[in-house]
């Protein structure tokens, strides 16, 4: 009797769960929506992104322009800091309640795509989302698992930024476009020496082997790959050891900005606090560097090249992307907003290069004419320089890449605190990759 009742309860619960999951997931029929969509379509969609209040104000302006074109699409906006954004999206993903349109990180794209959380946008190209002016190579970065799951808002490239105020104060000439890694070491020591008497003491750089993108560019400079086509590492533990040990001398003699001070400043950074001169990051972060460090006098040049090599490896990389969620009931309306944000020159006038260098020539020209942010001119100049260099493409990032990048940062912190050796660093990185990348 009890068993029968239990079975009945379990059956009822299963039916309820199925009904609920049916209600929450699935999404609308994309082909039918694409056919029926027009400028007067009525819809209500949600759009989420990460960023600060300034970005939120710009999106507000961009959406009001969109509403002039599509007056019956109501857009509910939602934004958060990067970390909070992903906590919220991951929780929503579990319940299949992701926003209709969402900002996507290149590091997360493969993971979200593998879990079938994103809508393949190909069926929407003809009627709703023509993406005029976008090149095939631009579109290719949003492809994952054979589907068009994301569209880049812009591009950026790895770079070396420097604080002109700090270097002027220490009477040190700025770094140049054509430095080598050996010359960089000399530069760092020179700044350290000059900044030793400052209060607090100022440094040339933090340990620049601390991020995975730096390693990727370093591998590309050697003419080597990073990930295989099936998403496995194309490097050995020894390659990792060689890379982090390439600055062993600077680390050992305390030439880098102390990790203790950097940890205390987190989530800010010693560079943003005006305490060291050089910062390695993607070029889109130039505006953040200017805003957070309180000076627009931040220069940008390519990261150094290996000794004896006179060309740089400067492959562009998608800065930010937009995706329509698979659970969206209003995919066509979400795709229309996506198309507008990516291609409209008016949107480029609002954002400048703060979402990356716009993908279409028209939008790039509009951004260059407007100078919406103080970072636009140097970023566009840097982009022209990058385009003039012949370099290999930035590698496709496998599912699980985001976890590996975080792990690299954690392990590097332990290395800098002297808790692990470079060999243990490599060993533990490979242990994590065997779980996250499924080696």
């Amino acid at each position, binding site marked *: 009797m009890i068993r029968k009742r239990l079975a009945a309860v379990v059956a009822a619960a299963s039916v309820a769960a199925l009904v609920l999951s049916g209600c929450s997931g699935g999404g609308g029929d994309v082909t039918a929506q694409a056919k029926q969509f027009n400028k007067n379509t009525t819809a209500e969609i949600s759009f989420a992104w990460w960023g600060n209040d300034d970005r939120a104000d710009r999106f507000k302006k961009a959406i009001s322009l969109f509403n002039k074109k599509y007056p019956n699409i109501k857009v509910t906006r939602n934004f958060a800091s990067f970390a909070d954004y992903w906590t919220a999206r991951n*929780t929503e993903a*579990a319940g299949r309640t992701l926003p209709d349109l969402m900002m996507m990180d290149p590091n997360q794209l493969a993971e979200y795509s593998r879990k079938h959380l994103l809508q393949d946008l190909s069926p929407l190209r003809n009627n709703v989302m023509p993406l005029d002016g976008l090149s095939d190579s631009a579109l290719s970065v949003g492809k994952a698992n054979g589907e068009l799951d994301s569209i880049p808002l812009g591009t950026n490239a790895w770079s070396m930024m420097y604080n002109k105020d700090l270097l002027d104060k220490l009477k040190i000439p700025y770094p140049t476009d054509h430095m080598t890694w050996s010359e960089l070491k000399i530069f760092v020591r020179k700044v350290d020496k000059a900044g030793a008497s400052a209060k*607090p003491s100022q440094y040339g750089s933090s340990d620049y082997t601390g991020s995975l993108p730096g390693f990727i560019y370093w591998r590309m400079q050697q003419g080597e790959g990073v990930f295989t086509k099936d998403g496995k590492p194309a490097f050995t533990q020894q390659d990792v050891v060689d890379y982090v040990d390439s600055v062993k001398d600077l680390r050992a003699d305390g030439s880098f900005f*102390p*990790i203790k*001070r*950097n940890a205390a400043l*987190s989530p800010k950074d010693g560079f943003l606090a005006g305490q060291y001169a050089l910062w390695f990051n993607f070029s889109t972060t130039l505006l953040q560097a200017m805003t957070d460090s309180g000076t627009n006098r931040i220069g940008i040049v390519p990261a150094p090249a290996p000794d004896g090599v006179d060309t740089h490896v400067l492959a562009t990389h998608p800065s930010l992307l937009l995706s329509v969620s698979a659970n969206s009931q209003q995919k066509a309306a979400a795709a229309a907003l996506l198309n507008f944000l990516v291609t409209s020159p008016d949107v480029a006038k609002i954002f400048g290069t703060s979402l990356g260098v716009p993908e279409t020539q028209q939008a790039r020209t509009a951004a260059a004419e407007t100078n919406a942010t103080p970072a636009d001119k140097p970023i566009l100049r840097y982009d022209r320089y990058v385009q003039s260099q012949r370099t290999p493409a930035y590698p496709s990032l496998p599912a699980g890449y985001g976890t590996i990048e975080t792990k690299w940062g954690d392990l590097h*912190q332990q290395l800098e605190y002297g808790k692990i050796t470079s060999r243990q660093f490599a060993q533990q990185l490979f242990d994590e990759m065997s779980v996250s990348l499924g080696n």
Partner: protein
Amino acid sequence: MMTAQLASGAQHGAPRRRTTWRRRRDIGAGYAFLSPWLIGFFVLTAGPMVASLVLSFTDYDLFSAPSPVGFANYTRLFTDSNYLQAVKVTLLYVVFGAPLKLIVALAVAVLLNHARGGSGFYRSAFYLPSLIGGSVSVAIVWKAMFTDKSIVANIGSFFGGPPAESGGWVGNPSMTLPMLILLTVWQFGAPMIIFLAGLKQVPTELLESASVDGAGPVRRFTRITLPMLSPVLFFNLLLELIHSFQVFNSAFIISNGTGGPVRSTLFYTLYLYQRGFSDFQMGYASAMAWVLLVVIGLVTLMLFRTSNAWVHYGGDEK
């Protein structure tokens, strides 16, 4: 006999039915009033608990269907260096944080119990940190107080410590846990108020007669006050231990959710959160949650078992 019973039943049947009906109606009304809590308990507490127990035996990434893995999640705990670090950090916090907080709370309560004037003001002032202690803003302020070039770093440097520009306590892995323990000790207001209520119950005539018999203040405290306060002490200790095992907010804010620097603030619940919501290893996170529940249960049981030896209730023969 049977006939008599039947007859009696027939005779009293109507009023009994009425009583039973009324009783059932009362019970129904009782459950109706309880239903908001009952629904909340089963849907939001008991249901998820059972679900997490089931999930702890599966590999579940939130997106795909869970696949059974037996005890693999539980056995993995013993080989996961981050998990062992989280256990170590949490145990240190529990062992040092909870007793220190209670000692400070008791000491201040004793002082306030003897205060002649302004005790109301001090009681409120000391209780205030408990009200705001768990908040994000306090953790942020705490971080600012102990970071590079902060007030604490400057004071330390003045007294011969490391220079104020060397990362402060926040950047120094050996000092981050003491910093978080200090934060919890500073929030001693709630146990202090409970201690103060307990102290008011200690009969003054007992203390006075002990004084007449020649007992000094220390002897009066250890032989009279403390034993009479032991039920309150037991209650406070139990609550603080359970809270300490579950600490999350302060470490999350101060380390920006990383448990750093170098895993020095990687508390159990923080690591559980990372595994569940950053790495999507919900099965593993569920196993961690159940181990924590069992450990807290065992600690509570142990406290109750040992309480016979040191907790003295009114009317006790011991």
